[in-house]
């Protein structure tokens, strides 16, 4: 007697919006390639059910000055390039980045308070050092974010840079800069489906096209609320697939930042011997955090360690292989 297995395929009415980072010379930019994410009409990697037209992209995070509070493991992995943002960008491209995520940390009032002019010079240098599309983050302080991101937007006009982060209380200036100079924005909200949707609405109310908005739902590392952020991302993805237009933005997650601030990755003193080798443990922390969030539906992962990037690239290769 022939057994029949009922089909488990879902037919979704919506899909994630396609967003392209970077612009080729023909389109007003100077990038050697562009990166398009999103476009899937199924849950992550369910190739049997729907289309997953674009691979998740890996961005490597670089800073405009040597990060003082980074783990020695990261500092050792990158070595001398930490001293020079251009060299760092180049190296990041070599180790397998799809995108460069530049953080203008030196503009923070307590970490150098560098100016918009300095930010221009930095972004110019990175644009010249790499042909990859850019993500540029301000230092995370409202006034300085606005100052340096406006400068960057002007300097990199037409390059389709993703500027971040817009937040509910501070998005107008950044969105206006993106509108004026042809960029994208990243909206970041604290682990909540409604808040993510609301920020997308606020940004699009300023007439920025929806194909220029990425959303960062805020995540946690393995052991630090990962399952909670996983479920919020999953709910956002489900809402998008069910046709809720304002949740259809591709998701970007900063797994490198999250994983490397977890105690397990950050320290090795006074930890139980069973925790094992520090370096291996730290790399696993970043890799597993990233893998989990890819499964949750992340479209761009922002990472830190070259070895973790290499592993994730293999993971993505496998996940994108149709059975």
């Amino acid at each position: 007697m022939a057994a029949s297995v009922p089909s488990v395929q879902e037919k979704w009415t919506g899909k994630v919006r396609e967003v392209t980072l970077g612009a080729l010379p023909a389109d007003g930019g100077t990038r050697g390639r562009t990166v398009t994410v999103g476009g899937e009409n199924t849950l992550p990697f369910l190739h049997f059910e729907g289309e997953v037209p674009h691979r998740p992209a890996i961005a490597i995070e670089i800073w405009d000055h040597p990060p003082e509070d980074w783990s020695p493991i990261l500092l050792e992995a990158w070595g001398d390039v930490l001293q020079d943002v251009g060299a760092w960008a180049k190296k990041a491209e070599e180790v397998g980045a799809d995108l460069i995520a530049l953080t203008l940390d030196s503009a923070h009032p307590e970490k150098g308070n560098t100016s918009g002019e300095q930010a221009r010079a930095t972004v110019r240098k990175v644009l010249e050092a790499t042909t990859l599309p850019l993500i540029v983050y301000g230092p995370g302080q409202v006034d300085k974010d606005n100052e340096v991101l406006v400068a960057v937007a002007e300097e990199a006009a037409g390059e389709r840079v993703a500027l971040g982060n817009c937040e509910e209380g501070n998005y107008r200036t950044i969105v206006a800069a993106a509108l004026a100079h042809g960029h994208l924005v990243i909206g970041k909200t604290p682990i909540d489906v409604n808040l993510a949707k609301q920020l997308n609405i606020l940004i699009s109310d300023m007439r920025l096209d929806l194909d220029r908005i990425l959303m960062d739902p805020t995540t946690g590392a393995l052991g630090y609320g990962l399952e909670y952020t996983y479920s919020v991302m999953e709910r956002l993805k489900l809402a998008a697939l069910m046709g809720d237009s304002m949740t259809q933005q591709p998701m970007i997650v900063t797994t490198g930042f999250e994983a490397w601030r977890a105690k397990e990755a950050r320290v090795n003193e006074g930890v139980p011997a069973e925790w094992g080798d520090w370096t291996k443990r730290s790399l696993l922390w970043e890799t597993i955090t990233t893998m989990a969030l890819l499964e949750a539906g992340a479209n761009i992962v922002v990472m830190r360690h070259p070895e973790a990037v290499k592993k994730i690239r293999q993971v993505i290769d496998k996940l994108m292989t149709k059975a």
Partner: protein
Amino acid sequence: MPAQQVVYVERGALLQEAIEAAGIPLALPCGGQGRCGRCIVVVQEGQVRRRSVARLTPQEVEQGYALACQTLVEGDLVVYVPPQEERIVRLEVGLAAEKEAPEVVVCEHEQAPWVAKCHLKVDPPSLADNTTDFERLQRELVRQHGITGLVASLPIMRKLAGALRAEDWEVTAVVEKGTWASSQGPPRLVDIRPGDTTEHTLGLAIDIGTTTNVVYLVDLQSKALLGRASAYNGQISCGEDVISRIIYSQRPGGLEHLQQLVLNTLNGLIDELLAAHGASPEDVYFATVAGNPTMIHLFLGLDPRHIRLEPHIPTVNHPPPVRAGELGLRIHPEATVDCLPGVGAYVGADITAGVLRSRMSEEEPITLFIDVGTNGELVLGNKDWLISCACSAGPAFEGSGVVSGMRATVGAIQEVWINPQTFEPTYETIGNAPPKGICGSGMISLLGEMFITGVIDKSGHVNRSLDTPRVREGPGGGEYVVAWAAETEDKKRDIVLTEVDIQNLLRAKAAIYAGMNVLATSVGLELEDIERILIGGAFGKYIDIEKAIEIGLLPDMPWDRFAYLGNTSVQGAYLCLLCPEHRAMVREIASKMTYLELSADNSFMNAFTSALFLPHTDLEQFPSVREKLRNVERLGGS
């Protein structure tokens, strides 16, 4: 009527321009966008084209009514421009969105109140008739008023001999026939006075709100409402919501202090009312009290701590009648103070009284009753079933916790329009007095206007890039100036709405809207299934349904499904004060109401965060607001 004038304008010009050219003042509060309906005129002869007929019924259009700001001249016309007052009156009467609340509803039952005064002429005793004073009084009460089995307390007994003899055996006995707890009596002698004092038989209906206290002074014989007074609850200095009051009550002496504060507030209001009517505390023989469970506990000096702690158990839902004297309420010490029954820890007598007042529990249609107080309570149901929930809305709509907030009294801004090009406001105050602050209905109106005109974004943040001095950076973030100090009553401070105020208002409206959603879902209904929505609360004289929908406080439904009932808690207390039958009904309501605990799962939190947006994260739920936003966009607003 102003003299007839002839003016010439180009074909295709707006009527408004022609009226300006004639030098007739015509206010355009909404900036000539056809939103407010304040520029209504009558086209008596000639051809016009109406770009919009907002706020006009088809019959009115038929009769020639038109909005001057939306009507184009297509040829020679005769136009009547009504004087300003006439236009406003028309709006107040005809505008379906503005719902005015009655002060009380009249009780149609035949029953007399619990307390009555009995005027008696008593046969003096003699050696042949040596019955005691008290038995003599009892005998006459049976004979003249059919009242049997009278009892009296010792303090009244002590007055008896003197009172009977002071006016030659003519007395007035104040008799309480019973209370809800002893409806069959025995009747109790509340007071005995020499002579005929039947002209003053007073009672009180009291609403003890977390933020606002209201007292109605009522004539128990004529059932007339003699006066009303309200004030902020003196306990506010010890915390704005019930939870912080409960925490305060746990300090040493805290409970006694809170009880004293609310008594002070009530006694002040009572003194004020009695003075205005030339009456004394001794003339008030009954008080009916409504309030949420925490307020009732504090009023009675009951420890409220277990209301806050799981599993949230009040000491009593239906407190026994007590004497005013033992409580410290400044009326006749023998008067009964009757606290109405509650349902549970967070749904109290204010809600059962409100439901009684709303009559939803007597009628067929599925009704949602909303009491917007510091705690927002909702009741859904009809004559067969009732389910309720409570959500913490905060005191913002009562004018507390908002920088320029005030209660709905003279000088409160109750309506605002904002011109979307200049961002200049036009406002109206209660009593047309110089403004002192903004009351609940004013805040709904203002918030709606700020949102529709783009002064704030959908998350309530002020758009600081607008080119107007009305928008500025205040001590606590962005703010919008509704009235400059020079316009105000005391000429000292600008009347503003700050971003912090706006967040408080958003939280309040989101809590209420989310509560509605969860409550409806819990019984398998959609919001559209609700046939009518009755609103109680201390917003002011009226609530503007249109604006309340704009900000997402109320669901987007036809305006005729809404009614505003005013302070339903005190109105319910008023009915119970006057009528034992209503008093029995409120007990029935309390016993049949189901309580839904919103904190039991996370569906409320999810509904709350999605409602924490203007009008709502899901704009599909507010099609009329979406349409309005499109229109403003089309007409060149921001």
